[in-house]
């Protein structure tokens, strides 16, 4: 009698467990589905917001508005025929230092090294791909800056300098050699002490940049006239 009671209780408990299990599965599914629906709604909302922001940006930076700003402030003009180069050979043939040569967007002379660098600022735009890494020695710079020197002689001059540097290596500072000169277009300008990056929060384009753009545009339109 007692055994039968235990047995039926066991059956009862087992069936309750199974029923609960069956009940829980759809509940779990419904909860997951609800979460999914919520995510879908969130995605849709985010997409709508992105769209709204994009549209706001487009509206604020509409082409008519940009044109007006350009007319009032920047004065940029379309590039003229002379500012296009046909192919790589023509690009290589460009001579930036020539009196009527192309005007570079910005030219940043070498930042003066610290006292032990002993390198005078070099302002010629000679392509110094070979000499640049060894520019820490005054001799090499002197050899390179004489632009009239035939290439062979320059190389001759550079080779001993290399040897000299190799010898002097243990005694030179650990500071990496700085390139002689570079254009702002080719490489990022060295960080200025006033930390241009930190100013991004305040103004996207700082005054000096706007000024650069304007003076460049003015010089260009003057040369065109």
């Amino acid at each position, binding site marked *: 009698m007692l055994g039968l009671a235990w047995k039926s209780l066991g059956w009862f408990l087992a069936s309750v467990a199974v029923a609960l299990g069956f009940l829980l599965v759809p509940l779990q599914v419904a909860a997951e589905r609800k979460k999914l629906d919520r995510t879908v709604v969130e995605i849709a909302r985010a997409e709508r917001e992105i769209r709204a922001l994009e549209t706001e940006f487009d*509206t604020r930076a509409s*082409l008519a508005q940009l044109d007006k700003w350009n007319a009032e402030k920047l004065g940029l003009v*379309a590039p003229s025929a*002379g500012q*296009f180069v046909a192919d790589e050979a023509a690009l290589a043939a460009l001579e930036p230092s020539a009196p009527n040569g192309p005007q570079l967007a910005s030219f940043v002379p070498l930042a003066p090294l610290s006292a032990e660098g002993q390198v005078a600022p070099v302002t010629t735009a000679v392509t110094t791909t070979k000499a640049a890494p060894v520019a820490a020695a005054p001799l090499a710079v002197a050899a390179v800056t004489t632009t009239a020197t035939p290439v062979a002689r320059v190389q001759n001059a550079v080779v001993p300098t290399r040897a000299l540097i190799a010898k002097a290596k243990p005694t030179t500072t650990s500071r990496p050699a700085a390139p002689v000169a570079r254009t702002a277009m080719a490489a990022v300008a060295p960080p200025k002490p006033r930390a241009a990056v930190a100013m991004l929060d305040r103004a996207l384009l700082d005054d000096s940049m706007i000024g650069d753009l304007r003076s460049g545009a003015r010089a260009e339109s003057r040369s065109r006239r």
Partner: protein
Amino acid sequence: MTTFVARPVPARRGNEQRHALVAVAHVRLMMLMLLIMAGFLLVIGRIAILGILGTPAGAANLAVNPQVRGDILDRNGQPLARTIDAWTIGVRPAQLLGDRQALADSLARIMPGHDSSWYLQRLTMRGKFTYLDKHASPDLVNQIHALGEPGIVFAREPERLYPQSTMAAHVLGYIGPTATDAHIAGRAGIERAFDERLSDPRRRGEPISLSIDARVQAAMESELGRAMTNFKAKAATGVVLDVHTGEIISMVSLPVYNPNKLTGTSSDALRNNVTQSVYELGSTFKPIAIAAAINDGVITDMTRRFDATKPLKVGRFTIHDDRGDPKRWLNIPETLVYSSNVVTAQIADRMGKDRMAAMFTALGFGERPATELRERAGPIWPRYWGRTTVMTTAYGHGIAVTPLHLANAYATLVNGGIYRPTTLLKVAPGAAPKGRRVLTEATSARMRQLLRLVVLLGTGRKGDAVGYRVGGKTGTGEIAGAGGYSRSKNVSTFAAAFPMDAPRYVVVAMLDSPNGTKETYGLTTAAWNAAPVVGRVISRTGALLGVTPDTSRDIDVSQLLPLVWTGEKKPVPTAE
């Protein structure tokens, strides 16, 4: 001593009385139960009805709202029209708590579009709800929310927005109700032409890509707008056309309207002058006549000379050249360079009515311009082709077409002689319509040389853009009004193509009734006002369109160059 105080025995009710009370209570309980059941039934019935007949919440709103439409993009994917959720600010006047006058004052301060009396009127009206502002920025909504007035409500509702505001307004069109039809639908431009496609819930997800290039459109609008103000012109139009596909890269009609805000727009501004207005386009027709003559073998020799020493008398008409033009015998290149009416008329006379009309028909001048837009005007075709009509149409008088017709005719002249219908929809690479041949390759090649000569030596000099090898023809048509042609009012047009050694784009600029300025020495001819617009547009957009300027290349005109007499003194191009 003990005293008993006994409670008096209450009078006991009779048995029947009790039974009656119980019965009444039962009846009351039954009624209560019935009421509750009826309530339940009502709720269940309502749920069943909703379940069977109702639609999900918000679905009706989405399906019906006519502001929800597909996007319109330019050829590079830049959105030109889209629907966004914009903030709207409304007011429920009955729920306002604070002082209405003060509230109206602060609203007028935050939203200066209206004065405080307007807002006060809105705040005190009897209705349940009214709008205060649509298209509100989130910032504005925050400011008004900070007023803390519970009667003012905010909602996000779909709104049609044209991010570039007035740019390409005539191409895009607008949506809204009209005076006779309160239904919101596309009422002009692409919005009207593709209304069904844009508002179809199944297809509005995919945007429409136009052939318009927003950058070129903006440059054209800015240059034409400047010329229009400068010369105080009544209207101006501009078209840029891809000569190999018929795609319209830019279509500008000034004055323009703002599709975001139509109130107060004049009917002049609503008209698309590129497709809805017809003009007698003057000397820009001369290359078409010459091309027809070359193509039909009427002119076989470029050196053949015609008499331009004196005005041409035909019946009671006299055809003049301009005073500055050389009074000599002119050959074919000279005819175009000096834009001689007299010689063109003689050539047209030799060609005759049939061949002239056939050429105009082949170029589509007999029908409305080929475009998807519904706003199209038919050309004014001569009713009677007399001998003089043939002569005058050859130099663009007596026949009136839209600027789009002219642009497409020039595309046919320079692209090798194939006529293709113009389109405002982007054409996939290689999917350009085959078109039909109107001119031979040789005629087209000759026309390229002649048009380049006009720019190198003639009236189109100001339309040149260095390195882009522009070729084109100016035209100054007199405006026909009541009592004949007006001497002082004209339509100045410059139709050009570039680069002439392998033409890719046609650019047409037209000014309606320009005035002379000090810089143009008081002249109103196209050489002084329309040609510079084209030159500047080409130098601004040529590189964007994939044409690299190159001063070392040009079309070979050495064959024709010696034929052009440049005179003892260089004649100033005052002509048309």
